[in-house]
């Protein structure tokens, strides 16, 4: 069930009314758990088993971790959680990738390798990371294991964040599930506005931009350099508005039900450096990778070379998390190398002198160039397509010149939205309920969604991860 489907509106309204009428927290949690499993079963009921497995394993591991101080035992317990979670993720997401990669080697020896027809369960990358983070936090004694299986199961499966994040930490959500949240009309309004904003981002901007992205990335050899550039910029907008739109709807939905989720985006295309980009893009994944991968690898506590190694490993695995393909691996490597280069340049500067006014612009330009090249790798179906795209972006100019006006309009809106967010208009963009412009803007947005959304079914981009 997609947040943008009419079925979701009916489902959400039913859940909201039922949740509002229940006065006991346990029963409210039961309702939300049943609703969350139904939400997940809407795609494929069989994958609910994976959700149950992940929940039970990490609940039990955390309980045992809580009860023992034996370091060896604790390590084994944590390892069992990691093995089960990564095992499930590895099988469903990476099995064929590794087989295909291995096949390239074994074929040269005259052997053959077969792949399996495996369906990727929706949201598996997100909930396995959530449950793993819980076990690791309990192992590190940063969090006490909960003895309430119901609350833990709801934490893992809570439908607003189940299939594409944000990746919520147990210490952020579990305490909120311990009591019925107080009802607030203002929060209801804020949540509805955020859901509406998310739907606008997804349907009116991302899907519109996708109309140009799909054909150009499918056959880059047809198009001129300028068209390819436009398509790459369009993809940058598409993936941002698609994912941040989904996140807005998830955060808004949770807010209406009375729960608070962490922020996932802070206008990443305003970043003046790649490290700043990662502080603004998919923030909950960035901090997961930082806390559970980069820091355990040693972070920046060792030598400069060790820091670079840790950065590249973290970003490469971050790339691989997005999908089982060498294009994602290269995307991660590119960002890792860029982060290292940034550290190298920053580290070589002798003293913190005041920066000239143009340095931010240069930083922004270089960052955007790296990000855009990265998106080419990220979006291309395979390496040869990515090379063809990059080749046409920088070296070949001939081909079809295609500049769809609606895509240009959507890109212009993206630029305006980013500029407005940085200006004194930011509070206006939140549409406070008591301002004269809020009802006008809200009405226009609702009509716009109904009238101007592209036709056809457009799943969220991040569902495939």
């Amino acid at each position, binding site marked *: 069930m997609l947040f943008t489907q009419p079925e979701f509106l009916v489902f959400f309204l039913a859940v909201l009314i039922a949740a509002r009428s229940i006065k006991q927290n346990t029963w409210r949690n039961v309702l939300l758990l049943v609703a969350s499993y139904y939400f997940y079963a809407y*795609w494929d009921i069989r994958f609910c088993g994976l959700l149950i497995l992940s929940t039970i394993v990490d609940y039990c591991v955390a309980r045992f971790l809580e009860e023992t101080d034996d370091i060896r035992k604790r390590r084994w317990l944590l390892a069992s959680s990691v093995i089960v979670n990564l095992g499930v993720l590895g099988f469903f997401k990476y099995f064929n990738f590794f087989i295909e990669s291995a096949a390239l080697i074994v074929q040269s020896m005259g052997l053959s390798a077969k792949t399996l027809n495996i369906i990727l369960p929706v949201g598996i990358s997100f909930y396995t990371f959530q449950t793993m983070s819980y076990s690791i936090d309990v192992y590190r004694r940063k969090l006490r294991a909960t003895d309430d299986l119901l609350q833990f199961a709801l934490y893992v499966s809570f439908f607003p964040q189940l299939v594409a994040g944000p990746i919520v930490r147990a210490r952020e959500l579990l305490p909120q599930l311990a009591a019925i949240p107080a009802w607030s009309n203002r929060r209801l309004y804020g949540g509805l506005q955020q859901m509406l904003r998310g739907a606008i981002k997804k349907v009116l901007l991302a899907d519109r931009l996708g109309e140009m992205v799909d054909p150009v990335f499918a056959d880059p050899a047809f198009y001129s350099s300028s068209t390819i550039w436009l398509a790459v910029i369009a993809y940058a907008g598409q993936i941002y508005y698609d994912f941040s739109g989904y996140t807005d709807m998830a955060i808004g939905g949770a807010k209406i039900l009375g729960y608070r989720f962490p922020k996932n985006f802070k206008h990443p295309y305003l970043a003046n450096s790649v490290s700043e980009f990662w502080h603004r893009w998919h923030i909950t994944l960035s901090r997961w990778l930082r806390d559970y991968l980069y820091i355990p690898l040693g972070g920046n506590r060792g030598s400069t070379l060790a820091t670079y190694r840790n950065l590249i490993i973290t970003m490469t695995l971050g790339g691989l998390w997005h999908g089982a393909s060498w294009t994602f691996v290269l995307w991660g490597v590119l960002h890792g190398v860029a982060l290292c280069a940034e550290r190298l340049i920053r580290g070589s500067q002798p003293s913190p002198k005041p920066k000239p006014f143009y340095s931010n612009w240069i930083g922004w330009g270089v960052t955007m160039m790296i990000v855009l090249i990265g998106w080419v790798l990220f979006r291309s179906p395979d390496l040869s397509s990515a090379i063809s795209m990059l080749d046409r972006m920088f070296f070949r100019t001939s081909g079809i010149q295609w500049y769809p006006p609606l895509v240009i309009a959507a890109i212009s809106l993206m630029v305006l939205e980013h500029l407005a967010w940085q200006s004194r208009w930011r509070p206006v963009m939140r549409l406070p309920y008591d301002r004269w412009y809020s009802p006008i803007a809200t009405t226009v947005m609702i009509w716009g969604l109904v009238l101007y959304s592209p036709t056809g079914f457009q799943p969220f981009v991040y569902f495939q991860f």
Partner: protein
Amino acid sequence: MIRDAAQRQATPLGERIAAHRILFQWLVGVAVGTTLIAVTSPLFIRSYLPRRIDRMRGVSVLQPGGEYRWRSEGYATTSIGDHGMAGRSIVPEKLSKEIRVAIWGDSQAEGMPVADEAKLHRQIERLSKDSEYRIIALPMARSGDDLTDWLPQFRRVEDELEIDLHVLLVVEIADLFEVNESATGLEVAPTNPTLDSNSHQAWIATSIPAFMIHASRRVLRTPDDSPRTLRFRPGWGSGTPAMDGTIVASTPDWNLVMRTIAESTDRPVHIIYAPKIVPSHKNTADVVFGEPDVEAIESIRSIAHHNQVSLTDIRESLRSSAMKNRWPHGFHNGRIGEGHLNETGYQIIALDLVRAIDAMRVHSMGSTAR
């Protein structure tokens, strides 16, 4: 929310005033927002015209005298003429040395996405100006029509409008699939008898603003215009959400199809096959057609010829145009190579048709061609 705002007010009276002020503000705001949409929507939203039964054709057509606004791929306004003809206001008196052609087809032939001047019938007439026989092309195509809609109208229009040649513009070969012996019957039942000027739909089209009709259609119907249904049962067998509605149609008896076409009229019939083309093939600049291969079309052409129906396959002309960056389908604001025929596409078809008519030596009232 209203209460929240009101809580700031110290007295119950102030509370009530604040609540009423915000409620009033929202009511006015909704009205202003809707007005804004109503005023700007003609820039982006198609119009809805009432339909009426055309007694001569026996089918429902767009109201003559109306203007149809197309807002999708291509932005154009089409004037609706006699008998619901798109882009042709009147049927002129027939002159000597003139060939009258009825053009049949679906929305691809109807040409709503292009301006009247660029429509197929206008381009045919322009190209035939210097020919020995001047061609008058009468656009009879309607969106969604196929062979079962065209054939019953042949005899009804050919005497009344003095038609010399019927031309079928076929973009999807499936439009020729559904045919049976009864398709040639002279009596035509309107496709929907309720769609006359007094019908419920006509009232909606004339009385309700287009943006409201458009909004309700989008809520109540799916993109393929079937009623929207909601699914609430859990899924089985799909890991990621995907929808693929591939329909495989069986191949028809082409001999029956062509014979039925030939028997439905005394006038010559010419079929132009102009399928959609899309850019494809990774990393090689090429264009492909999704429909039958050359051999299949050659076989259909030979069956058509045997039944005295001529058929031209203009795929090579379309392909060659596309390779020169002049795409016959799709528009700048739509997808290149997909969607409806555009001005370039109509140019190619018009050129082919004028040549074909020359070659067929069709004379006025269809005296020699068959």
